């Protein structure tokens, strides 16, 4: 098939899938948080409230699109579109299946994802600035300062994985697991190595902070700041910021699965060469199903964290990012280096 056409189809399918995933998350978040808080959650729109995301989207679109007076029109319009676009293209290098099941097979895939998270700061800053409101701006700048502080921890954690896998290519990091296999049924995933546990913990914490999710959503949640950088946005534009947050969560979850939990590889039982022949067509999509199951585990985990943990105060948050996570990530790298040096007898 013409490679250009294939690229277009893959990109379209993945964007479409992520849109649906975002809609699912809207529902799942409210339902799960409701259940955890011992209440029912949405149950009016459709059976079990399943049509709630539809209702939300329709409501948001039908609302009046108010542009605040004196807002910088170009940037006001650009910010939500930029945020949403970045959140969706972050998913490009993720391998969600065997070779070929990846939108963009790029050599520096992992660094590309860090690049996208660096750029998401713009969505927040521009949204806050363009609203011509001091409170939005303040919320936006605090959000941005938080995001850039935690990017360092995120990158530090990810470097540990790069050390173990020896490549920045997400495809190779996952294929590595296929090769190792583990002790028969134990997967050779990165998470199985205790030296990478601090890295995973730092990664998870930093990912929540990057996404401005609880327990790190103080800049958008404080009483006197309204809703932070998106105070002045209504209807469709607000929906875009909302979508960008969930799409970002999907991307970070997918990245966590790829880096630490073996990507699309099953627990040995579902590996491609072990599947019985009568499964037929299912075996082609089995790895992708496995991948999305793992990704959903992380996304549900994020919702669970949201329902459970209290918000961190801003200075506690910044202390955690700079004074705790960066040293932990660095110590992890040093430990990995020394362990490798000792075990391979470099001395």
């Amino acid at each position, binding site marked *: 098939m013409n490679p250009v056409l294939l690229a277009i189809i893959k990109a379209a399918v993945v964007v479409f899938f992520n849109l649906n995933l975002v809609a699912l998350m809207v529902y799942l978040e409210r339902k799960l948080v409701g259940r955890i808080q011992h209440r029912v959650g949405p149950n009016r729109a459709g059976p079990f409230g399943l049509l709630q995301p539809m209702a939300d989207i329709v409501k948001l679109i039908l609302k*009046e699109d108010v542009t*605040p007076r004196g807002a910088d029109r170009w940037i006001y319009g650009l910010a939500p579109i930029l945020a949403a676009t970045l959140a969706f293209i972050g998913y490009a290098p993720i391998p969600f299946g065997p070779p070929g099941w990846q939108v963009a097979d790029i050599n520096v895939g992992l660094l590309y994802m860090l690049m996208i998270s660096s750029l998401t700061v713009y969505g927040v800053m521009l949204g806050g600035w363009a609203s011509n409101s001091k409170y939005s701006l303040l919320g936006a700048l605090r959000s941005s300062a938080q995001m850039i502080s935690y990017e360092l921890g995120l990158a530090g954690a990810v470097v540990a994985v790069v050390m173990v896998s020896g490549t920045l290519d997400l495809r190779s990091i996952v294929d590595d697991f296929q090769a190792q296999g583990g002790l028969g049924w134990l997967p050779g995933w990165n998470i199985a190595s205790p030296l990478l546990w601090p890295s995973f913990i730092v990664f998870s914490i930093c990912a929540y902070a990057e996404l401005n999710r609880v327990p790190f959503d103080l800049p958008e949640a404080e009483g006197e700041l309204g809703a932070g950088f998106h105070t002045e946005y209504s209807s469709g534009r607000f929906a875009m910021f909302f979508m960008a947050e969930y799409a970002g969560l999907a991307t970070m979850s997918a990245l966590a699965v790829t880096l630490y939990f073996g990507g699309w590889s099953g627990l040995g039982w579902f590996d491609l060469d072990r599947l019985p022949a009568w499964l037929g067509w299912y075996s082609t999509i089995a790895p992708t199903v496995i991948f999305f199951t793992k990704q959903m585990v992380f996304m549900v985990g994020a919702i669970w964290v949201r329902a459970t943990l209290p918000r961190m105060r801003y200075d506690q948050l910044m202390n955690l990012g700079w004074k705790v996570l960066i040293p932990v990530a660095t110590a992890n790298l040093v430990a990995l280096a020394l362990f490798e040096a000792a075990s391979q007898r470099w001395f």
Partner: protein
Amino acid sequence: MLESYFPILVMGVFAAAVAGGMCLLARLVGPRHATAQKAEPYECGMWPVGDARRRFAVKFHVVAMLFILFDVELAFFYPWAVLFRDLRLFGLIEMGIFTAILVAAYAYVWRAGGFEWD
């Protein structure tokens, strides 16, 4: 190699089209009753006056500048981490010196209060 980046462009175009489309739809479909009150930015507090504002703004600049410096440091970590096993002891010592100097810098910034009131 450039060809593998093309799908990113396509994805970007699709995502921007969806996002732009939804914003456009919201503009077209939503009611349009502009009133003066609605256009006012949301305010329910007082902006602090005087030099308190300048003091607090410095923190943001410090955070941003320190972020740049540590980001550059990490930019050197990535290639080392990729070739870490091949570079063996020599690479380890090289990176060790680099890291040690930067750990000293980090400790200095901590002691000097660069991470305070962040």
